[in-house]
């Protein structure tokens, strides 16, 4: 905007000793902003993180539903930057909007839940990828399907590689079960959260994979 003149040294001594804004005040103002943003329809993306057996997960939701689940290896800060670019920069840390998602995911990892009743928002996946993700939701808990079988199921039997890409770029892993897609020879294949996370999920679901 403008070039900055150097600050005169004598000027700020009156204000130097101001104490830091305390946490309680910061939290109160932030809570109020989230509340008022929500009421005004300005909270386009809400997010929070939760702990899980596969590490910290970032959850993000639009008004339509859960739009992103991200593993720690995806770098949550970068994920939020991309959400700002791809969806909206009106993003706030607003755990309450994700209470239901957090609860269902907790229950899933505790072995108490086999399916998710959450509204999801596929805004981050388009065309063929979205088609594949929609099809993945039909693979039941504890079942697996091959990349080739999914390609057949979506009517593009030759698009095995594209199915792999759709799974690798699944914006809502765990809830949209791309971990249930394995290679035709039975080996586990790749995973957005790393092969170890995929093994953990399949083992949890009673399908120990090598």
């Amino acid at each position: 905007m403008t070039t900055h003149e150097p600050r005169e040294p004598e000027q700020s001594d009156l204000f130097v000793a101001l104490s830091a804004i305390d946490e309680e005040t910061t939290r109160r103002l932030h809570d109020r902003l989230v509340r008022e943003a929500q009421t005004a329809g300005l909270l386009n993306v809400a997010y929070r993180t939760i702990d899980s057996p596969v590490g910290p997960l970032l959850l993000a939701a639009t008004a339509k539903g859960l739009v992103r689940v991200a593993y720690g290896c995806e770098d949550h800060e970068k994920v939020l930057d991309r959400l700002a670019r791809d969806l909206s920069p009106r993003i706030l840390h607003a755990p309450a909007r994700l209470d239901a998602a957090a609860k269902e995911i907790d229950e899933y990892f505790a072995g108490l839940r086999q399916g998710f009743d959450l509204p999801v928002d596929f805004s981050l996946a388009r065309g063929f990828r979205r088609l594949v993700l929609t099809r993945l939701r039909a693979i039941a808990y504890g079942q697996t399907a091959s990349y080739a079988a999914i390609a057949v199921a979506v009517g593009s039997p030759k698009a095995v590689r594209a199915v792999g890409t759709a799974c690798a770029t699944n914006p809502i892993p765990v809830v949209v079960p791309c971990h249930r897609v394995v290679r035709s020879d039975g080996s586990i294949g790749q995973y957005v959260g790393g092969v170890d996370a995929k093994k953990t999920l399949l083992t949890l679901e009673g399908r120990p994979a090598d």
Partner: protein
Amino acid sequence: MSDLTFGAAGAFTSEMSTTLPPFEEIVTTHGPTVLRVCRAVLGPMDADDAWSETFLAALRAYPTLRPGSNVGAWLVTIAHRKAIDQTRARARRPLPIDPLPERPAPSEEDRRDGHLWAAVQALPFKQRVAVAYHYVAGMPYADVAALIGGSQDAARRAAADGIAALRKTYGEGGPR
């Protein structure tokens, strides 16, 4: 200072970027300084309302902000408009409004800072905003003048007069 002001390296300078960061980052980075500015201009009682209105308005307009803009100066500009609105509203209301019942008791630090804010409150509006934007927000006088009107020299004089008055009423040096 313990927190970044908009004059500190990194917080005020424009970064070359092509996308806007998540608004949460804006709140974390600039929230404390904007609150101090609101306290300086309006006093601690009305500062929370002004802060909230400022950030809600900023959130509304945020997607249209050009990436790489001076976010600190942008926020102070919004806060300034809110402060003018509140000052006018305050002039219209006959009795001071009772503090909000849910407002927690001020901490010891807040009470100590409160003496300074009370002294700043006693300044005429022009001096008060010049002091707040230059000394608390760390904005250069050119930006302060653009915001409050008048020349850069007038802004500098208003801030200097404000500081001189503060030294008389509040004393030399800092509160500690």
